[in-house]
């Protein structure tokens, strides 16, 4: 069991800022600090990729034009790596094709410098919320997977049939076992999966299927 303090610090959001201009990095960091959000700055995408990974929730604020790997390229690379941290783009001049491309690839927003502070803070807050939700979902899925791993092959077959909505008698017929045995397996499944109702089991089975 993790201690509550460690869990709290791990849950505190952290924002990554990537911009080649130090003045922008400084200003953005101070802006986020004024609303109590911690941030970490990088001068290029390379520096970001070289940095130690973190499991704290948060988001990325990227300038579209960056030396080396551009913001858009980084976005594509993170997508391939199944890194779901939300991305907010900034640009010196509104470039419509570029913003369309970024948004289609799943960016949170596309802000043109200079932007209103409130706009940036709103997007950052929304991105952090989104990341937290994603993380919770991922954690839940992980838990369910762990529970499912404890099931025997027969129990797994029974659970699949139950989730499909089959009755005990049908399941017995399907698997070629007695109805009593089905009931026994079913009880074990409910216990191992830590659910009280079929509805809860169905929800967990859905998480597993993802």
């Amino acid at each position, binding site marked *: 069991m993790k201690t509550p303090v460690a869990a709290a610090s791990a849950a505190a959001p952290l924002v990554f800022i990537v911009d080649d*201009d130090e*003045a*922008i990095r*400084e*200003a*953005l960091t*101070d*802006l986020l*600090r*004024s*609303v109590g959000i911690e941030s970490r700055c990088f001068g290029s995408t390379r520096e970001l990729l070289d940095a130690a990974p973190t499991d704290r929730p948060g988001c990325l604020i990227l300038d579209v*034009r960056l030396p080396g790997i551009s913001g858009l390229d980084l976005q594509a690379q993170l997508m391939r790596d199944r890194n779901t941290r939300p991305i907010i783009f*900034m640009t*010196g*001049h509104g470039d419509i094709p570029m913003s369309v491309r970024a948004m289609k690839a799943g960016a949170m927003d596309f802000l043109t*410098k*200079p*932007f*209103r*502070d409130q706009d940036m803070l709103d997007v950052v807050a929304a991105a952090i919320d989104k990341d937290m939700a994603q993380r919770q979902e991922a954690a839940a899925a992980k838990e369910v997977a762990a529970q499912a791993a404890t099931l025997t092959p027969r129990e797994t077959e029974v659970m699949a049939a139950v989730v499909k909505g089959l009755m005990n008698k049908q399941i017995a017929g399907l698997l070629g076992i007695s109805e009593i045995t089905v009931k026994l397996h079913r009880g074990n499944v409910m216990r191992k999966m830590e659910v009280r109702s079929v509805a809860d089991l169905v929800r967990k089975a859905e998480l597993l299927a993802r």
Partner: protein
Amino acid sequence: MSRDAAETPLIADPEPGGACGPSRRIVSTRRRWHRLLALLLGSAVFVVDTFTDVTGAIAVLYVLVMLLAAETFSRRGIVLLALACACLTVLSFLTSHGLNADVSAMLRFGISLAAIAITAALLLRDQTSKQSLMEANTALARSEKRHRSIFEQARISLWEQDFSEVRNLLTTLRQQGVQDLAAYAREHPAFPRDCARRIRTVHVNDATAELLRLSSPSEAQGPIERFLPADDPALLAVLVAMAEGRSRFEGRAKLVTTDGQVLTVLIGISFPDEADEFGRVVVGMVDVTQREHIQQMQLAAQAELARASRAATVGALSASIAHELNQPLGAVVMNAQTCLRWLGKDPPDVEAAMRAAERTARDGRRAAEIVQRTRGQLVRDQRSDEMIDLREVVGETVHLLETELNAHATRVVTQFAPSIPPIRADRVALQQVLINLMTNGIHAMTETQAAARELTVSVDGPAGPDAPEVRVVIQDRGGGIPDDVHARLFEPFFTTKRGGMGMGLAICRSTIETYGGRLTARNHEQGGAVFEFALPADQDAAQTS
């Protein structure tokens, strides 16, 4: 008898291969009479000389025989005739006086022989000169024919024009005290046209008829007025050349064909030395319309390309400036907003707010620096300074603008001071300034009468040792600069031209100022605008030279 025998093969043929038929017969009939008469006269003289006692040099009359016969004899015939006459004289002398003649008879005999000899010599000389005269005449006729055929067959348009009336007119004007014909033409706008009516075409060749779309060369005869467009300055230039007594004129002119097409031609005229030869002055023309047209299209394409690349440069530049400036500006805005946030907290975090305010000031300064640097780059970037003779640059620019000048029927007069020190600047940049100022001048005169469209470009050396600078003055004869325009003339984006950017004069001024000079504009007392720029003379060059 012996004379007749000698005569026959000796008959001269004055027109070898020439006349034939009736004329030849008439000539030979007359010749026969001459010869008969000579024979009779000769016989009579011999008879009288030999058989009568008439004292006197009767034999001298053989001269008459020779004169009569000479025309029909060749050189050899004349010599033989003279010998025959001399023989007859000797015969007569011996017959009548024998060997012991008295002194006076001997004297008469001598005189007669001398007369025959002298006559023979004179006749021979006469015949020689007659022959060479005839040869010269033939050669002349051949040469005339050859030149005629060159004139007629040449693929270059050739005209024979009668300038005598115009020449008289110019002489009269000079006697009346007209010195500057161009100025006179400005005061009398109808003058060139009047002259065009007085210049008559006498003859043109086939190439000219073709050029003018005439069905026959004879249709070109008469005043040349109908082939000249109303406002072509070339005619005045020809008149000025004539008035100044130049022997040649070469230039560009416009012609209107009978089907209304306007052609551009290169024209060459050789003015004769003698006054009476102005009745037939040969004028040559070459049609360069097509060439000119292609050249114009090329220039237009070049101008379009230059405009496009300028636009592209401006676009790229503004994009780069926008990007560079946006970073510090974005930071400035963010810092200011954050500063407000720190101050808006309860209690306000003044220390954090101060830090944000300091960053705001720092980034603002950075933005200003970027603006400064970019401006500096724009002006300095593409410069390659060299020693320049402004007279050369003016000459080159006039050449570059030739098409534009022709299109607007504008003349350029350049006035250069004899000694101009060099200046140090970028040649292309200065050319751009001159092109700009001269084009402005040309455009300012579109409303001016064609004859008065004159652009004066003068280059003057230092006014004194305390002002070591070279001045260039460009004066037009347009409407001048209105007072309300004058104040804003050099402002960027100020223009009076439709479709103008308003950058021309602003760039000109900044270019001139980059080289430590100044550009000013004013109106001339006699009308028209004057643009003047002065550039410092290169001190090193001035000292070494």
